């Protein structure tokens, strides 16, 4: 019994580790996945690695055809377009709802104000080119939190579950531009920060029209940047 449990946990760990690398774009689209190297890196036998790759291929994250080496699944322009299509249909509206449901003096309101402060600090750092590793991870946190807050404000609704589904589906695309760009990254971060600030201000000002249109614009730009990044890789 104990042995069995250990084996499952190891299998899960290997799977999660490889998945994480793909989703954060540490492993790039179309990058070849060598079972040998992966098992050495992770310090395990090839079997759990092979199983993980099979599982990941059913989720569309890995291309694992016979007689060919396994590769990280490519990201097509079409994938990007489709994901943003759905997000553009839903998220501007979700943000409008969030404005209407944001309570005065609530915890969420306080957290949004905090977040605003964080972004302003990040912007200053970026302007002075003092951007550090920490700054980078703060940036991701801010973006992630903003999405979470909006989902939190919407609550346990059908729209909320769908936004979650979309979030899971598009994890890899989310930070693709940031993760893979070299030179343009600073500009991307700055632009995104500006747009996030605009959205938070619309929320705090209780302006549903601004919230909706700023999210729509933000998504348009994000789609453009992601497509540009894909074509650059």
């Amino acid at each position: 019994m104990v042995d069995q449990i250990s084996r499952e946990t190891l299998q899960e760990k290997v799977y999660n580790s490889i998945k994480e690398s793909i989703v954060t774009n540490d492993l790039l689209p179309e990058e070849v996945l060598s079972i040998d190297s992966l098992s050495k890196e992770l310090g395990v036998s090839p079997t759990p690695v092979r199983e993980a790759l099979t599982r990941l291929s059913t989720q569309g994250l890995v291309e694992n055809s016979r007689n060919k080496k396994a590769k990280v699944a490519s990201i097509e322009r079409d994938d990007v377009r489709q994901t943003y299509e759905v997000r553009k249909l839903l998220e501007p509206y979700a943000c409008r709802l969030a404005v209407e449901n944001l309570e005065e003096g609530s915890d969420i309101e306080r957290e949004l104000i905090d977040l605003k402060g964080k972004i302003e600090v990040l912007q200053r750092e970026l302007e002075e080119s003092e951007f550090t590793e920490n700054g980078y991870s703060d940036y991701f946190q801010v973006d992630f939190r903003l999405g979470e807050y909006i989902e939190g404000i919407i609550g346990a609704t059908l729209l909320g579950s769908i936004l979650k589904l979309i979030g899971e589906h598009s994890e890899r695309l989310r930070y693709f531009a940031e993760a893979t760009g070299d030179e343009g990254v600073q500009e991307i971060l700055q632009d995104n920060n500006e747009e996030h600030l605009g959205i938070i201000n619309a929320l705090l000002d209780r302006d549903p029209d601004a919230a909706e249109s700023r999210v729509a614009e933000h998504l348009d730009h994000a789609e453009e940047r992601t497509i540009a990044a894909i074509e650059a890789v």
Partner: protein
Amino acid sequence: MVERIERETLHDKVYQSIKNSIVRNEFMPGDELTIDSLASDLGVSPTPVREALAKLSAQGLVVSTQNKKARVAGITKDDVVEIYEVRKLLEPYATRIAAEEIGGDPGLARRLEELRDRARRIGESLAEGEMDEHLFERYMDVDLGLEDLVEEALGDMLLSKVLGVIGDHSLRVRTFTEVSDGDKTAEKNNEEHIEIISRMLSGESEEIEGAVKAHLDNAEERTVEALAE
């Protein structure tokens, strides 16, 4: 090992069966559910029934009243508005895209035409007489058939998965109106389905979206009315 798997399958089946009855409005909002009667109807012990009800309660489909009883959760106007909001955001667009895909696939196009033929015959039957159980089945088959065809046409696009989630959530609300309102609702819905299918087949993009939006507006209104009765 083998025993454990069998028990899980049984529990799952009990859960699915009760859930299905609720979603299809065979158990309607407000209906009382007794663990013992359900167990006896399903031919199982009370334990899997109790577990199923606990799970359904967590999903908001059932409300626990007493130790051995539960009630099917009510459907509120808010529930309806919420579902239709999301449907209106996605389905007009999704139907348009599906129509484009169907336009390029003779097999799918044929199936769409078949659906329209069936809907027309249902319309004729409804005009001649009252809705009975058999006619209702035929009607629901077309309704769900159209939904399935749209999802299939969209393939493995994200849009298709999202529609699947919405479909699961909205089935209860949808069948509630048909079940409690019967003829009136079904006849109008059926006509609107025919309209939508015709637009899809003729490929007029904007008109498709318009027809779907109008249908959803009307369906929402009818549902809210049915709730108020």
